[in-house]
């Protein structure tokens, strides 16, 4: 494949990837992926037509008309949906690109196309910052570097032919196809090395660029995110089964302790999302929402350490992928939540986090939670008796008797009579009932046994298997039937822990429902509601079910999630804090370490000086006559002798350097170069001149040697004689050899070399 074809094909591939950066996340638009396809199709068309025959290119008139049409199309797109202004702009760039691709290409046109591709990429990165855009961006960057390199060679070849402005033709430029035989192993290897170097340098520059304090901005994308089933205001029982079989990432969480060290959770953390309080005919409804802010100072109850419970804080840096829900997740109890743009709000009714709208694509926020999950949630309001009665204890009348019967039976079975007044014990007894593997099992298959009764009752009485939502619903209603206020919580349990990145990737399959039972309030004046968390879902069976989701690709999550982590936290979410930690803190540490090292060296130097001073101190001449005096004198004399030798060597070197090369030597080298080349060449084939042999004898022997190596070598058998003659002329005759003869000799030596190589092959 010729250089021009490689260059042009690479150029078009780069343009296709630029359009992919713009279109890869266009999930809202059915025609989004048509743009890269169109670019690829036009590239093929241009490659076989206009790039081979420039006369087949688009005329300036058609070019102008096409430009006008592209503006009209982009405006039309904007008027159809004014929210997609950037996307319309990006598409306009693609239209221009398509038109330009059909033009005969000059260097200027190539630069325009390159620039258009770059702007497309910039627009694409502004619109979406997903990892798929990242992958396309990486591919584009690699290709762009490759193309820039080839483009440079292309321009230089044109410049050498005098085809660029201000350039005149230079001898040496190929008349036909430039750079024949360019694409070989060494070239590809050096291109790979160059690409890696350039990317690494670019990466370092990116990391070193100044960042403002606070999280990096993730721009409000035009593209809506995924739907989170189970986090709507109203949830149909069993609906969560859909999300449990989905493998896409909901959020990535980096956890650190209060000292900034990475925190590895002991078990599976429960990421609280929404709470459900009202149940009717298999449907749960959310509790009301009352925005509040987390208190600036923590209540005394929360601050008091409790014996046997973990202490400290967990900071969760969460990258929540774009979704259509206002829910935000965090570990209970949360004491602080922050985000660079819109601060998360606390729902004081149930102590969950939420945001005001779903625009803005993915969101970065940080939550600080106490490690003791049983502590009350600061900022959460204690439920009023009315709410307790109407919401937290509400059970549909048609199922209440059966549920109450089951609850009473199980409590009686598991709690001694003396302890039945203890709400916590009763609640845990009901949780244990559902966790009993002989009674209930976990499944994602939903089969209704009795359609006439409530699904929860059907689960408890007939089916006895289901997923977390059934278990949680059943426990909530059983608790309520037993007179314990309770609510169901939808969120996520655990996640895929990535050992490489030490980050947790929470996927949709990790969605979970559990139960919180209300135990009362903390003492006045704080009066914070005290809830205990109950998880009736069989953990081991659920874990097996979760592990099955994802299929083959789940085997590579350790790698893909690590890459994703780097992308999310060190590219998209790279902020001043991370920059400081990654970049400046090590430099500061290094400088500080170096300073300490220099101080130590200074101290050691001072000690050595003092020691030397003591060693060399001789109060009088008589003190020199001693073992110490002898040793010191010996060493000093030794050093002086070494110094003198070094000085002589240095002076000689300096003198030789100042004198420069011996002109006679140069002349001799010039005259003998051919002979040396001949000797080296023949030496490679075992014919060496012993010291006792003259060059003339050597030439004779070489002639015989060549004459005996076949007809090809015999044709160049006269070369040694000619070279030695020339050598004698220069070396002993002090005569000149003209340029023409030198040229002859060189050519003959070339012929000899190729003949010997061919012979050997």
């Amino acid at each position, binding site marked *: 494949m010729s250089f021009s074809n490689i260059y042009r094909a690479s150029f078009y591939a780069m343009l296709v990837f630029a359009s992919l950066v713009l279109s890869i996340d266009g999930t809202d638009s059915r025609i989004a992926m048509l743009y890269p396809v169109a670019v690829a199709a036009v590239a093929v068309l241009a490659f076989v037509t206009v790039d081979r025959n420039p006369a087949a290119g688009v005329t300036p008139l058609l070019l102008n008309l096409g430009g006008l049409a592209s503006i009209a199309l982009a405006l039309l797109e904007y008027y159809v949906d004014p929210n997609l202004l950037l996307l319309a702009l990006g598409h306009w760039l693609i239209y221009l690109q398509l038109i330009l691709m059909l033009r005969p290409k000059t260097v200027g046109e190539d630069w325009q196309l390159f620039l258009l591709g770059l702007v497309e990429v910039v627009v694409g990165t502004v619109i979406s910052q997903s990892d798929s855009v990242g992958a396309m961006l990486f591919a584009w960057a690699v290709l762009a570097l490759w193309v820039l390199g080839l483009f440079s060679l292309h321009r230089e070849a044109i410049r050498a032919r005098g085809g660029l402005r201000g350039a005149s033709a230079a001898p040496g430029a190929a008349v036909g196809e430039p750079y024949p035989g360019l694409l070989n192993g060494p070239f590809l290897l050096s291109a790979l090395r160059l690409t890696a170097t350039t990317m690494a340098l670019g990466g370092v520059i990116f990391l070193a660029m100044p960042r403002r304090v606070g999280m990096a901005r993730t721009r409000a994308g035009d593209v809506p995110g995924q739907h989170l089933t189970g986090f709507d205001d109203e949830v149909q029982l069993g609906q969560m089964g859909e999300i449990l079989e989905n493998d896409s990432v909901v959020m990535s969480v980096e956890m650190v302790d209060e000292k900034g060290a990475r925190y590895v959770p002991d078990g599976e953390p429960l990421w609280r999302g929404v709470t459900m309080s009202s149940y009717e005919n298999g449907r749960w409804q959310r509790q009301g929402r009352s925005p509040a802010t987390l208190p600036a100072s923590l209540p005394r109850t929360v601050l008091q350490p409790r014996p046997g419970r973990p202490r400290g804080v967990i900071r969760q840096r969460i990258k929540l992928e774009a979704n259509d829900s206002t829910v935000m997740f965090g570990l209970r109890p949360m004491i602080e939540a922050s985000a660079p743009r819109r601060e998360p709000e606390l729902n004081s009714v149930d102590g969950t986090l939420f945001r005001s709208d779903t625009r803005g694509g993915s969101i970065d926020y940080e939550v600080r939670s106490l490690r003791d999950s049983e502590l009350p949630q600061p900022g959460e309001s204690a439920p009023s008796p009315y709410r307790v009665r109407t919401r937290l204890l509400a059970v549909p009348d048609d199922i209440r008797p059966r549920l109450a019967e089951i609850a009473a039976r199980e409590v009686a079975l598991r709690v001694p009579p003396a302890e039945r007044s203890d709400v916590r014990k009763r609640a845990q007894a009901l949780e244990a009932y559902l966790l009993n593997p002989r009674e209930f099992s976990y499944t994602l298959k939903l089969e209704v046994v009795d359609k006439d009764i409530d699904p929860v009752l059907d689960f408890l009485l007939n089916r006895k298997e289901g997923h977390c939502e059934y278990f949680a619903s059943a426990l909530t209603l059983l608790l309520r039937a037993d007179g314990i206020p309770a609510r169901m919580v939808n969120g996520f349990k655990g996640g895929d822990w990535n050992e490489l990145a030490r980050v947790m990737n929470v996927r949709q399959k990790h969605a979970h429902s559990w139960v919180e039972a209300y135990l009362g309030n903390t003492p006045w004046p704080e009066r914070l509601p005290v809830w205990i968390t109950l998880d009736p879902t069989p953990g081991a069976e659920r874990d097996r079910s979760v592990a099955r989701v994802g299929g083959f690709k789940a085997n590579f999550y350790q790698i893909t999630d690590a890459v994703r982590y780097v992308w999310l936290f060190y590219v998209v979410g790279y902020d001043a804090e991370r920059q400081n930690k990654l970049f400046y803190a090590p430099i500061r540490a290094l400088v500080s370490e170096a300073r300490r090292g220099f101080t130590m060296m200074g101290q050691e130097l001072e000690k050595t000086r003092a020691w030397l001073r003591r060693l060399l101190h001789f109060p009088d001449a008589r003190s020199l006559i001693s073992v110490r005096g002898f040793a010191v004198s010996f060493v000093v004399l030794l050093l002086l002798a070494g110094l003198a030798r070094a000085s002589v060597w240095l002076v000689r070197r300096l003198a030789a350097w100042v004198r420069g090369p011996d002109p006679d030597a140069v002349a001799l080298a010039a005259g003998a170069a051919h002979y040396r080349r001949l000797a080296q060449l023949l030496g490679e084939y075992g014919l060496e001149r012993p010291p006792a042999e003259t060059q003339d004898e050597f030439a004779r022997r070489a002639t015989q040697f060549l004459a005996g190596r076949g007809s090809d070598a015999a044709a160049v058998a006269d070369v040694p004689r000619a070279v030695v003659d020339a050598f004698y002329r220069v070396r002993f005759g002090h005569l000149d050899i003209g340029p023409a003869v030198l040229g*002859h000799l060189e050519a003959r030596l070339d012929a000899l070399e190729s003949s010997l190589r061919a012979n050997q092959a």
Partner: protein
Amino acid sequence: MVGRAARSTLAVLWPTQRQLWTREGFLYFIVWIVLLILGLQQQINLILLVSGLAAGPVAASLVVSRAMLRRLRATRRMPPYAFSGDPFPIDYTLENDRRWTAALALFLEDELAPADRTVSGASGVSPRVFFERVPGRDRARVRWTGVVPKRGRYRCRTMEVVTRSPFGLLERRVTITEPAELVVYPTVGQLTRRWHLVQRQAAETRRGRRHDRTSNQQEYHGLRDYRPGDSPRWIHWRTSARLGQPMVKEFEQQNEQDLAVLIDPWLPRTKVAADQREALEQVVQFAATLCLETCRNPGRRLLLGWTGATPGVRQGPASVKLLHELLEQLAVLRASTEGGLAALFDALPPATLREAILVVVSTRPLNLIEEAERSARLSGASSRGLLGRVLLLDASRGDLADLVQYTDTSVSTALSRREPHAAEHEARVAAKTPAAAVGAAGPAPFPGSNGRDGHP
């Protein structure tokens, strides 16, 4: 020694590599700045990432272009002399000592600058060649062919190897010190029949006054038609009678009498007209042609003298060596605003004054009698004798117009024909190395060559 030390010190202190922005690189930098400002202002990391990646090629260019020029050796080979106006080849060789990596798209720029621009108003030449690809452990040779500039001494001090690798955004130039010198001889032509006629007329005049011992040395060559201006003494009466038309004898110039070419390169101190400069060049070219024609036949003594504040003389038996000396002198001959022929007469050897034929070529009208009278070395009798052997040519009057014919054929080839001894040994060695392809890519010239290969 001191000069060398100073040059060495300067070479150490002065950087041999320079890096410049190319036009495309400058525009690329502007685009990068826009991206950077946009990214920093918006604090969108992906724009900053694109901006960082876009900065990568610039940063890599700083490092990689240096590597591209590493372990490369460039050498130049050019002849030590050339004739003005002739096609002139310079061979440039680039040797890539790297193991694998090829040297790609390299320009080699050279500068052939006149040592003294006042000699002939000469301007320099800037050869530039392109090395498309030199594979690792290989070499390539490219020949630049240009037209030799005006006469004078030219110097090449340094060459620059230029690369825009790897992205064409920055240009790195490495300066290689490789001094070389080229002497551009004046343009030479061929003496016309008119010159021979003029010379014969002068000789005839001379013979009319005294017996010319050299006339016997003219060798009968043949007969030709009588032309107006031919001396009746040369008419071959017998043949003319037989044919019925006048025929004259033609002699080949076998004159062994010494020849002195005296040049008066005078130009006014101020307000020099273009035709005066042109006259000076004609004088120099005529003298060069005359020297070359004279040296074709060895055995005769030839002298070249020139007027000026310090008149100069070069002389010797006609030979290739002398010819090169004289041509080199003519190449660097400068116009003179002072001095005259009288001072030059004083500088001439007595033998020349006594018996050589003197061809005086001047850019101004000269009164030979006055000049002879002013000369301290010429008495009345010797002055008359001398004036009888002088042929005075005034270029400003157009005396030289039809004495020399300039052809398009390369003069250097003509010179090589006239240098049998010099060409002999080359031919002998070349005969032993037949079928050589000169100019094809082949081995590099000798390392450390000072540009005059074969002239150590």
